[in-house]
């Protein structure tokens, strides 16, 4: 049993493979309840995979994944369906339904997962859109929205069912500075005011460090480091320093392994 109630999510000894390539090897991660936790690392290090493991869309090859006191790999399909209602995800792409207007996009999870009457669905949709500042946009179609607005509508949809855990997959990618500022403020507001546990997966260092209470840096199939943003900024671990300070070269080399350049260009083939 897990279960330190201080943690909303706990990964214990989790390994996950794609074919023979290990994405995670015996990883331990603990996400404190009610806080914003950033999961950082270079592109391709398995951050999105991590969210899918927590969201029970993927099963680990080994290890335990505890969410709100339940070990996901041991649950039935039905139990997982119920667990997913406790989790909201803001996907990298926003993933709005392009043939539904803003209202129907936010109403969608309420229609699928609840039997609320139409008037209550309308109340909740308007409340969620008001929270993200887009109540006036209910009749717009997704292709009439800016990138920042799309992401806010997706956020309103992600909180439609009042999840206890909210996961953000690269929320800042492709956002202009104003939209980025709006998102940072919203993530913090939702977290603090509603007591949501937030997991922000990102490679945008400045934004993530600015809102996270706690950070994990992942890479090379493992947790390279963890701590408060300040602790990691001042880490003397060269791998963490390279990532946190954005150095092109370091323990993670700039060059993908390659044969000798000379041999490649001038050597006999």
């Amino acid at each position, binding site marked *: 049993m897990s279960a330190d109630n201080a943690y909303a999510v706990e990964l214990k000894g989790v390994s996950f493979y794609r074919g023979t390539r290990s994405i995670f090897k015996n990883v331990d991660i603990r996400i404190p309840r009610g806080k914003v936790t950033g999961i950082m690392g270079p592109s391709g290090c398995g951050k999105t995979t991590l969210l899918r493991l927590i969201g029970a869309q993927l099963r680990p090859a080994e290890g335990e994944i505890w969410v709100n006191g339940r070990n996901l790999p041991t649950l039935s399909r039905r139990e997982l369906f119920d667990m997913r209602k406790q989790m909201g995800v803001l996907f990298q792409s926003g993933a709005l339904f392009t043939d539904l207007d803003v209202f129907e996009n936010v109403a969608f999870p309420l229609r699928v997962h609840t039997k609320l*009457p139409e008037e209550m669905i309308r109340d909740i949709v308007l*409340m*969620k859109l*008001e929270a993200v500042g887009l109540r006036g946009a209910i009749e717009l179609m997704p292709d009439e929205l800016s990138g920042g607005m799309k992401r806010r509508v997706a956020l309103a949809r992600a909180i439609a069912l009042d999840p206890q855990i909210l996961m953000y997959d690269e929320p800042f990618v492709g956002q202009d500075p104003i939209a980025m500022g709006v998102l940072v403020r919203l993530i913090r507001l939702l977290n603090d005011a509603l007591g949501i546990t937030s997991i922000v997966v990102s490679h945008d260092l400045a934004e993530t460090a600015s809102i996270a209470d706690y950070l994990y840096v992942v890479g090379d199939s493992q947790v390279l480091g963890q701590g408060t943003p300040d602790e990691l900024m001042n880490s003397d671990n060269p791998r963490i320093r390279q990532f946190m300070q954005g150095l092109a070269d370091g323990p993670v080399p700039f060059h993908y392994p390659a044969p000798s350049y000379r041999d490649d260009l001038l050597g006999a083939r």
Partner: protein
Amino acid sequence: MSDASIRQVDGELCLSGVIDYSTGPALREEGGRLIRAAQATELVLDCSAVEHSSSVGLSLLLAFMRDAQKHGKSLVIRALPVEMRQIAQVSRLIELLPLRD
């Protein structure tokens, strides 16, 4: 199944229990019936016995406000729990709710 109810106690409406997506629809119906049937024109909705509420609880308050309005009655809300107040703040509902503490 979560447990929740709305009842008339000493002339006041009392909302209690866990208000969520499973209990919301029945509470909506029962509350609407009580408001319609109430003799008084000034109704009080006491929320002090609400143990836990999602956004559904706020939607219920709005639905009851609409019911009261439709039947020419006034409604005030008493003892809104902190959790509901926080949801109301995030969705900027606080100014719209007839709160009396």
